[in-house]
């Protein structure tokens, strides 16, 4: 288990030494969500209606951007190969990398979301739902995305291919995540959406690290 935390620490340290990569992703999230009101118009009723979908789609795209750098530098300099050879189970190390990725790319989206939500004129109760839904949903995005990132390691046109592979798998998260926020904004019960998001999280926690580890082994061969 100490290896798990060591990997998280190492990846976070690497990111803090070169902050620009991660900040670019966050700015991407902010810019994309700010473009929609400019394109659609400042009618606050309309904005309130489309806010859940836009924020979630922007979160999906921002996660995809961050995924391409999840394994690539470790793959290039051979660190990943050493990890597959180490006595610690690869699944654990992969889990650490995914956790670090979520702390770097997922958690800031959760923290930024209320600011974006205010731009879209969401009320405080809906903002709370948005934060909770993103908190449950973004780890799923990192977990599923890691499989795609490992499958496309060192592949021609990997970045574009990654989005083609991963985005269809994100659809359930998008539906229930945006659904929860929308339900809350019209005063409906949101517990069903949260239960389903939590179920997806448990399911992806159980399977995604193994699939990712298997994909890495295939890429290393």
């Amino acid at each position, binding site marked *: 288990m100490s290896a798990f935390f060591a990997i998280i620490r190492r990846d976070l340290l690497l990111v803090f030494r070169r902050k620009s990569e991660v900040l670019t992703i966050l700015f991407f999230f902010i810019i994309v969500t700010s473009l929609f009101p400019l394109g659609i118009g400042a009618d606050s009723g309309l904005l309130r209606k489309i806010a859940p979908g836009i924020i979630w789609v922007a979160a999906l795209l921002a996660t995809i951007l961050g995924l391409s750098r999840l394994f690539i530098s470790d793959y290039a300099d051979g660190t990943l190969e050493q990890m597959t050879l180490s006595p610690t189970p690869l699944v654990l190390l992969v889990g650490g990398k995914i956790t670090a990725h979520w702390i770097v790319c997922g958690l800031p989206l959760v923290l930024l979301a209320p600011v974006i939500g205010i731009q879209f004129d969401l009320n405080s109760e809906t903002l709370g739902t948005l934060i909770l839904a993103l908190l449950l949903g973004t780890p799923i995005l990192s977990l599923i995305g890691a499989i795609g990132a490992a499958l496309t390691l060192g*592949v*021609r046109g990997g970045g574009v*291919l990654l989005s083609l592979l991963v985005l*269809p*798998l994100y659809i*359930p998260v998008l539906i229930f995540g945006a659904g929860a926020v929308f339900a809350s904004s019209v005063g409906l019960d949101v517990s069903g959406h949260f239960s389903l998001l939590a179920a997806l999280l448990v399911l992806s926690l159980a399977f995604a690290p193994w699939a990712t580890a298997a*994909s890495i082994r*295939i890429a290393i061969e």
Partner: protein
Amino acid sequence: MNWFSFSSPATFYPLAGKLIPLFWVLATLLGVAGLWISFFVAPADAVQGQGYRIIFVHVPASWMSMFIYMVMAAWAAIGLIFNTRLSAMMAQALAPTGALMAFLSLWTGAFWGKPMWGAWWVWDARLTSELILLFLFLGFIALQASIDDVRRADKAGAILALVGVVNVPIIYFSVKWWNTLHQGSSVSMTKAPAMAHTMLWGMLLMALCFWMYSIAIALMRVRVIILERESHSDWVKNLKALQS
């Protein structure tokens, strides 16, 4: 007879060559019978008139697209577990046919939807999940095509197919709960079908025809893949068909 001997490309290649004409004949016979029933025997629908006849292509194509994904994932899993070359080739050969079926299903569905619903496309559960199935097929094909090392392409594709298979029901139900407007399933295992017997026969014959077609075309494609991958081996160099 030792069935496992056919898991070698060298023995499967001639077997597939013998089977292909058989499946083409079956596909043609079933297709002619199915089309004859669906156009001349089956009565016009009480509500939907003549326009409903597109379901004789639409429903078999939808069934086949889902079925082919399952078969593809099964071959991929066998290839991954037992490390057999031929299974991965079968998965690769099935993917384009599956994508074609998914596309055909969406296309004919649009033609059916325009007169019945008044719209080419609605965001309904089954349409949306069929579209996502098409994306999954395309993702599988794109991933395999972009990896040069065939063994790695096979294994990476296999993992993607398996992840997809786990996700297909989740996607289907999430889209279903999200929005549903599609008419209820016309054919079901649990209750008597709500359609004339001749219509059902037409649909079943067409489904069998599509099935036989898919097998025939997948076998033809797998033969090409075998030749491509085994081109360095002696048995391919000694093939009579390639000598001339």
